């Protein structure tokens, strides 16, 4: 759908991540993962819980380093977290309870070199974009879950990163709110005015992945490896096509693929002893 530039935005080459575990010795979270994500691509990563999806996202965001292999952003190795490169959205929102909405968004800017006098305008822009105008002075405990995640998204967008990394952003929201937010996120992705145009999202809902993504990367059970990398070439906007047989076929295909590889049965968390 989109023309692929020569240097991919994000690239992983044979990435392994292992943890030392006092009880079991070495635990491999992800094993030999290679893929690349181009600019203006929306990629969803799906997989059973505990398969290393979050580890993968954290490596892309520079929060975690691969034990072996390497991660690249625009052809250069990712040295560490850099908000200008990729900003993150969390399932638990990760808002600071003692700050107002405005201050929470400002917090993201404090780590960047945006001069102080420019911050109010930027914040106002994204507050408006996420429909938070009436809540700038509220604290997180006064907001609903959906509103909190809007703050989370606004905070991430305000630093105007190249990549938006989302870790199950909608799974602690109710279905209706999640649907609205999904459309909002797609709108931002399509919005030429925002600088952020490459989106990576983790989810465990197949339908959600098919609804949003250009490509779905399917991970296996722990240790996570790529079992499929499926382009979703359904027409957009997909909200007009969710009743199409093609949509259901795509979902069914992915589900069959996953159940063939052992299903999405939730694994017991490895004992952290």
């Amino acid at each position: 759908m989109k023309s692929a530039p020569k240097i991919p935005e994000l690239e992983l080459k044979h990435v392994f991540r292992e943890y030392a575990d006092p009880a079991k010795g070495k635990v491999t979270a992800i094993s030999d993962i290679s893929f690349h994500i181009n600019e203006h691509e929306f990629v969803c990563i799906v997989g059973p819980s505990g398969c290393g999806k979050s580890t993968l996202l954290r490596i892309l965001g520079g929060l975690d380093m691969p034990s072996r292999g390497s991660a690249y952003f625009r052809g250069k190795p990712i040295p560490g977290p850099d908000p200008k490169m990729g900003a993150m959205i969390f399932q638990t929102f990760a808002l600071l309870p003692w700050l107002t909405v405005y201050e929470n968004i400002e917090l993201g800017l404090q780590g960047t070199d945006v001069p102080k006098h420019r911050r109010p305008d930027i914040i106002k822009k994204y507050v408006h974009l996420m429909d938070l105008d009436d809540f700038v002075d509220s604290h997180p405990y006064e907001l609903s879950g959906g509103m909190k995640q809007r703050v989370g998204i606004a905070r991430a967008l305000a630093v105007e990163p190249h990549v938006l990394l989302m870790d199950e952003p909608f799974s602690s929201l109710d279905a209706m709110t999640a649907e609205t937010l999904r459309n909002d996120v797609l709108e931002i992705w399509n919005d030429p005015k925002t600088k952020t145009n490459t989106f990576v999202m983790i989810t465990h809902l197949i339908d959600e992945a098919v609804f949003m993504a250009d490509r779905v990367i399917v991970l296996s059970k722990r240790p996570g490896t790529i079992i499929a990398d499926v382009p979703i070439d359904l027409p957009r906007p997909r909200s007009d096509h969710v009743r199409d047989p093609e949509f259901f076929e795509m979902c069914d295909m992915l589900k069959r693929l996953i159940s063939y590889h052992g299903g999405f049965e939730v694994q017991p968390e490895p004992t952290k002893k």
Partner: protein
Amino acid sequence: MAAAEGNASGELLKNVDLAEPVPDELMKKIRHRHAKKHVGRQKKSKKGEVLKVAMTAGGTQMWPSVKVPAESKPSPPPPMQPLIRFGTLEKVLLIIAAATFISFSYFGWWGRAFENPETASLPYYVLRTLARMLAAYALVIAFSVPYGIIAGLYRRPRQIMLPLLDIMQSVPVLGYLPAAVFLFTSALPNFQGFELGYEVAAIFLIFTGMAWSVAFSVMSAVRNIPNDLREASNAFGIRGWLYLRRLVLPCIVPSFITGSILAWGGGWYFLVAAELITYGATPHSLPGIGAYLGNAIFKYNNVPSSLLGLVILISVIFTINRTVWRPLSAYAKKFRLQTMDTQIFTETSEPAFIVKLLEKAGFIWDSIDAALKRASRLSASAMRSLHLQIRYVPKRRRHLPLPWYKSGIIYVLMFGAVMLLTAHFFSAALVQPLSDLMHSMSSHPEIINLPYFALRSMLRIGIAYAIALCWTLAAAILITRSRFLSKIFFPLFDIGQSTPALALFPFMVLVVIRFFGSGELSVEIASILLLLTGTQWYLLFNIIGAIRQIPGDVLEASRAFGLRNWKFYRSVLLPAIFPGIVVGSIQAWGGAWNASIVSEYLMFEGHVYSIPGLGSFLTSTVNSPNPDPWIITLTVGMMTLAILIMNGLIWRPLFAIAEHYKFEG
């Protein structure tokens, strides 16, 4: 639906010892259930896998059960561990022992230490002290757990019980001393050299050092039980003993253990004062390590023997912390309701002896359980026959807290009652008639200085608090950032927290006099140093706890947004630990007031070192030949009042603000 089925298979598993091979019949049932749930999806599964799946389903319990079978390890059974592993505990103890031995030999102190006639019976003293502490702790369990549960569950009793607990906690531990001694020595006989009266008095004093923190933590744990769980149990008709056993007791386990650790620390801290009862004409000492320490310093002036006693006491405390409290608090984590994902700071521990012992002792618990269940059923049927049915009445409105003037009146009344009772106890204990209050005050004109003394003490505590806050903040941040540092320093802090204050004071005075001369200034400095020992640990442990409570996501978010160094501390870390600082400060000020009694007045080698303050006034009044009960009561009351006022005016409002600084679930 799925959850219900899952629970059912969990029930099936619950009756099975997981270390044993699963019977075929059960396997079939599990497989059958499992197959029904995922028609055609699952490929052929191996034995272990099916078990694993069923286990997970069983793991979705509504609340933590007491035995926690679902989380215990599945097959294969873990390899047998050696009885004694050469771990940190053994290493540290060995180092301490070696250091003691070498330094004692080097300085030639062994001979001097054994000049103290009591040194030979030290092992026996340790046993006696342990027995005393255990007896006090048993009393604490018997008193504080029911008290906390009742005050936590029911609103009306709480309106009385909470202020009472607040006041009781604010009365300094040593304020109970004369009353305890009189009550128990006159009521209980001595037989064959075993001084039952003094023994019970000492146990009671240790009890007063332990009880309140446990009661408070149990109460707040009961109040913090999520409403969902309460309503769920009410909806399923779970009442009476079953309600306690299935909901309340498991929910209070973590707080109870934390409270117990604090309580034991408090007990150790006042051990010398409890065993070496200095009241009346002659100090009375009981066989015990605390009294040994006190006697070594005050009676024999034998520094080497007191050092030896200190080393042994520290080893005992350290061993208990490592073999009992550390594993128990790790075990208690299984009962936590929300497990926050803090990957960055995780502790590791192997299943410890005490935990195994607890699991082995399950049959005792089961029999108690059965007996109480029967009792509960009997009482229920008795009540039914009397038409006194306990019914669950749905809440109609949210209970608002009492208006301030009403709770103020309750506080004033309770305070008055407690003080009146105290005065009566003192007068009985001192065999002094309780004279007219006015008469007492006019015959002791120095009582007019009481507010001044309180101010002096408060100033001193304030300085100690400021110092403590500064260094603990820095230390907590450093320690939580490095696993290595925490491994080294945690044992040290454990020991420091529970080293008896009285045993340290003479050393501090001696050392400080060396450097600052024997003026009042050096006593001030020594006093502040001693106050530090009573304040800093509360702050340190609470701040460390607060840092560990910061959700992993929040830390990652701040890293992802490039917040580093000062920006991170100012915008994230300091606000996040603010609740911990407030809670720690409340405890620290309470501990400091308690310590101030023993830190302002010292009689050592025939010399009195004293500085103006409530503590020195109280001590000198009690030690005077003709102590006036009202004067003592007024002093104790002044101190209690100072604590209550500070709590009400400073800490309570800060605590309310801190509520908004807490991370959600």
